[in-house]
């Protein structure tokens, strides 16, 4: 990983397993909500996407990710931890490019905060993509 928030290439199942252990020592976290965004093999103009190459304004992406986490934690008081990871570079169809994990005491805030973080990331993270065919 380039930093806490950005990783070169896909977010592999192994990395996801590692990220998921991060909340495991908090026995007060009764709820874990996870969102994984993956590259779809969409067809556009008769051509099938085989991969997406992601680029970012890295310094700003880090700052924005930190602001998303701060906002989500203050908006949903039951939240105990928030993890955000986005891919840079080439991610093949079927591979994961976004990972969000929110833990909270109870289910309501975990699920709502995870969705809220997802919408904020879509809106605010300076990331661009280029479809590869």
């Amino acid at each position: 990983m380039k930093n806490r928030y950005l990783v070169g290439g896909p977010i592999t199942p192994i990395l996801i397993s590692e990220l998921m252990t991060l909340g495991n020592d908090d026995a007060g976290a009764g709820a874990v909500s996870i969102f994984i965004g993956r590259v779809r093999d969409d067809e556009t103009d008769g051509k099938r996407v085989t991969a997406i190459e992601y680029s970012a304004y890295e310094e700003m992406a880090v700052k924005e990710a930190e602001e998303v986490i701060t906002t989500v934690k203050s908006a949903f008081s039951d939240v105990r931890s928030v993890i955000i990871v986005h891919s840079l570079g080439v991610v093949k169809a079927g591979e994961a490019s976004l990972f969000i994990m929110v833990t909270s005491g109870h289910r309501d805030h975990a699920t709502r905060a995870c969705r809220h973080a997802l919408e904020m990331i879509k809106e605010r993270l300076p990331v661009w993509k280029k479809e590869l065919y």
Partner: protein
Amino acid sequence: MAAEVRILYFGAAQEATGKSDETIVAGDTASVRNQLISRYPALKQIPFRMALNRTLLKGESELQKSDIIAIMPPFQGG
């Protein structure tokens, strides 16, 4: 006062300008916008926003030496 500022191009703005960054001289962000659009006509097709020193710009701002301005097409993360 005009100042030397750094311009960073991202996403489709890189393809429209053919570069990832450069240094220009400008007094404020409106001047940056005007200079770039006249220099790179293809940029007109891109609804870009600007960030000044990693913060999304709202309205316009005066510039100081070494300020960093990012030219950002619509975000596509997630």
